[in-house]
């Protein structure tokens, strides 16, 4: 009886435990994966999804527990051994060699033949593509590929190696809605071919749409699994978070709107002389959230960095900041130090948390003082006030950390972002710029961040929110500025605009763009 039961299970993970120092990423997790199903693995950030899948794909050896493939216990010590067992994983950060072609990447590391038979590879790749509906150009170099193409290549690479169990770690995070649809089509094709797919995602509507079964992790423990047809987003959220959470985003009515930031004719060239921002003009008001939408790389980063003084701008533009006390300052052409000395309260939550907003190896206190350490005349840095502030942020935003002295990189993504946003808000800003402030965050933290932004808005701060999720932008912002190819293709009222309308502006310049 025992054997009969286990045959249909492709994978059994038994009692898997994995720790990183004091963090228990996986605590005695038991997870089964069946043949021919799409299993969604849900969990908040830091709940151990990626760790568990890294164990399955041979990247980590668990501290305890074992894995059964088709009923027999195995030891998976490397991704190569995982491949041999038919297990493959597409990571959030692709593992491709940029200067090689698609076909070369596919055979890389296989050591099948002494001589590369690329012709044969191409034929086999074509066969896989035809079977599941992929489009891969075998001779295209990876550096010429879009994110979506790279992801497709990663999946084809796994199938080429004969993977029967595919693990996709947040595959849709980097895709546009249209690309996501395409991905789902091939996922369904693979499923009907008998493959098992583990789909990690934060987006509940995607989980509901694509999966057959949902397994939920919370704080390193397995909470339970449920057939997708028997559940709904609200129930899943409760399983993930451990209590009921509202999924609606609040949008208080803006009041006392005053001109805060007036940008005129802003142009930014990159080091190659390519225009990243082209004659951008707009006004942001105190007391509103101005959403900024656009396909990734349309100039969002350059826009915020130019306002913050981190990006050299062409001299004919103007960035005027009008403070609540009536003072007016021109920020164009100033560097961050000069802007700091103006004391205008410019808060900026950059996209690259560890590469710009925080210092990964420093503790919470040292990170909190990053923006304010210059205060005072003493040659010694004051750590008392930052310590109090760090304590306050940890308490108010419920940051989970072993101590204030913990290096911030050891915190989970959500807690890191809470510290960053908390610090930026603590400086009583007049203008708060955020870039992808909720990227990769779980539902609970996402809503905490939205609440903080709304709070600032009601305080009369001008909030600029660069986002990628159109649904969120439409629910949270008051107005949405759409960037396309470095130009403003339109500014719409978020309360009345349609998703399709904004989507169209993202890809085509509107009429008023060059006005």
């Amino acid at each position, binding site marked *: 009886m025992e054997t009969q039961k286990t045959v249909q299970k492709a994978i059994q993970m038994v009692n898997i435990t994995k720790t990183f120092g004091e963090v228990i990423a996986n605590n005695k997790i038991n997870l089964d994966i069946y043949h021919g199903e799409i299993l969604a693995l849900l969990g908040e950030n830091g709940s151990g999804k990626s760790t568990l899948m890294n164990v399955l794909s041979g990247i980590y*050896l668990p501290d305890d527990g074992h894995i059964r493939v088709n009923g027999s216990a195995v*030891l998976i010590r490397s991704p190569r051994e995982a491949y041999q067992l038919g297990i493959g994983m597409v990571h959030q950060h692709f593992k491709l060699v940029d200067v090689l072609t698609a076909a070369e990447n596919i055979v890389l590391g296989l050591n099948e033949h002494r001589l590369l038979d690329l012709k044969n590879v191409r034929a086999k790749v074509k066969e896989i593509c035809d079977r599941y509906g992929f489009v891969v150009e075998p001779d295209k170099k990876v550096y010429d590929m879009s994110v979506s193409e790279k992801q497709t290549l990663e999946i084809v690479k796994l199938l080429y190696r004969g993977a029967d169990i595919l693990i996709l770690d947040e595959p849709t995070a980097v895709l546009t809605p249209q690309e996501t649809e395409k991905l789902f089509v091939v996922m369904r094709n693979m499923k009907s071919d008998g493959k098992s797919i583990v789909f990690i995602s934060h987006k509940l509507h995607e989980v509901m749409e694509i999966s057959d079964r949902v397994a939920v992790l919370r704080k390193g423990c397995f909470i339970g699994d449920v057939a997708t047809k028997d559940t709904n987003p609200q129930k899943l959220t409760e399983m993930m978070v451990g209590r009921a959470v509202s999924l609606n985003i609040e949008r208080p009515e803006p009041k006392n709107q005053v001109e805060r930031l007036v940008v005129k004719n802003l142009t930014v060239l990159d080091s190659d002389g390519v225009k990243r921002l082209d004659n951008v003009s707009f006004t942001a008001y105190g007391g509103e959230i101005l959403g900024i939408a656009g396909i990734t790389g349309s100039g969002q980063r350059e826009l915020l960095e130019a306002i913050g003084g981190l990006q050299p701008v062409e001299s004919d533009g103007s960035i005027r900041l009008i403070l609540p006390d009536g003072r007016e300052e021109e920020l164009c052409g100033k560097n961050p130090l000069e802007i700091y000395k103006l004391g205008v309260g410019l808060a900026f939550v950059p996209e690259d948390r560890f590469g710009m907003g925080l*210092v990964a190896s*420093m503790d919470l206190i040292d990170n909190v003082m990053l923006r304010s*350490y210059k205060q005072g005349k003493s040659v010694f840095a004051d750590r008392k006030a930052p310590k109090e502030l760090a304590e306050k942020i940890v308490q108010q935003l419920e940051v989970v950390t072993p101590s204030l002295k913990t290096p911030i990189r050891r915190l989970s993504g959500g807690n890191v972002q809470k510290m960053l946003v908390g610090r930026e808000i603590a400086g009583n800003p007049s203008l708060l710029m955020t870039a992808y402030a909720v990227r990769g965050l779980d539902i609970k933290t996402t809503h905490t961040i939205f609440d903080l932004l709304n709070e600032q808005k009601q305080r009369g701060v001008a909030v600029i929110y660069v986002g990628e999720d159109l649904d969120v932008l439409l629910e949270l912002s008051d107005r949405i500025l759409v960037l396309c190819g470095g130009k403003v293709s339109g500014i719409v009222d978020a309360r009345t605009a349609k998703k399709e309308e904004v989507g169209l502006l993202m890809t085509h310049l509107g009429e008023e763009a060059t006005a």
Partner: protein
Amino acid sequence: MKNDNKYTEPFVRISKRGVPIPIWKAMGIRALALLAALIICAIIIFSIVKLNPLKVYIAMFEGAFSTNKRMWVTIRDAMMLLCIAVGLAPAFKMRFWNIGAEGQILMGGIVSAACMIYLSKHMTTLPMMLLMLVLSILAGGIWGFIPGIFKAKWGTNETLFTLMMNYIAIQITAYFVALWENPIGSNTVGVINPRTKIGWFPELFGQPYTLNVILVLVLVVFMYLYLRYTKQGYEVAVVGESENTARYAAIDVPKVIMRTTFISGAICGIAGFLAVSGASHTISTNTAGGRGFTAIIVAWLAQFNSFVMIPISALLVFLDKGAIEIASRYNLNNHVSNMLIGIILFFILGSEFFINYQVKFRGSKHQVEFQDGKHKEVQA
């Protein structure tokens, strides 16, 4: 490969320790490592050169400490190494790969020697000491500052730059050695002011090297405070981690790079002053003697904590002195003693792995339990 798919408990499972182990246990592991190193060394000594290992160890110890003079020379050399490591710390903390300490030491040494040669008739010891200190700071500082400017303004690669600055410094030293040659034809400068001892570190408390110790310990304290508690030290750390973050935090990155490279070079310059005025009382192209490179190891091992650098530089100098002693006493060639040093360092550094990681071998009944998110080790 296919056979590997059959399940067997892996031979060893390694995981990072959750709770750091208590200090006495950590010290115990280190002591065990040292013991293991000595045993392995003993086997090698016995099997290769057929000597009594115990006698060799005693010789090593005697080489470093047997007489008062030897002990003080060991201390002096440890201080010298420590001083350079302290100087390198800020640069490396800023991720500025200063491998130009050799050159910075030589520049500090040249100006010190110049003072001793040209000013011995005009100045007394105290003002001359101060002058030498200031000049060696400037000379070493400028030698560190030049690659700093190029890095800050034009983004040049400091590794190559500082390395090549060493060769320039060696050539300049060679020129001055020829200029100051004494006696003529010896191709050395010889001991400067051997009778008047002007420009030599004065004896304090009856020992010739007390001043070296005081000077270097002051620098140790200074660097500890500087890196840990000052705003400038904070800036150094931020720039080292990410220049983008530094710019975001309104830090003037080029200024920090130039300032830090000057400080780093300046302290290495002081080391040159120590070497010439406080130790050898002469100058040669070997004055730095590779210590500018050894100090890199010291600085990194100590994770730029200048107090931790003290035992590390002491250990390295002790091993070096011991190796020289056994080489000369037992007519061994240098390689054997270097092998011993290598083995001892390997074990001591390797023991850190067992302090930071937990290693579970196949078949052990050792289990880890988790309760309330806390580790609990259970002997089943």
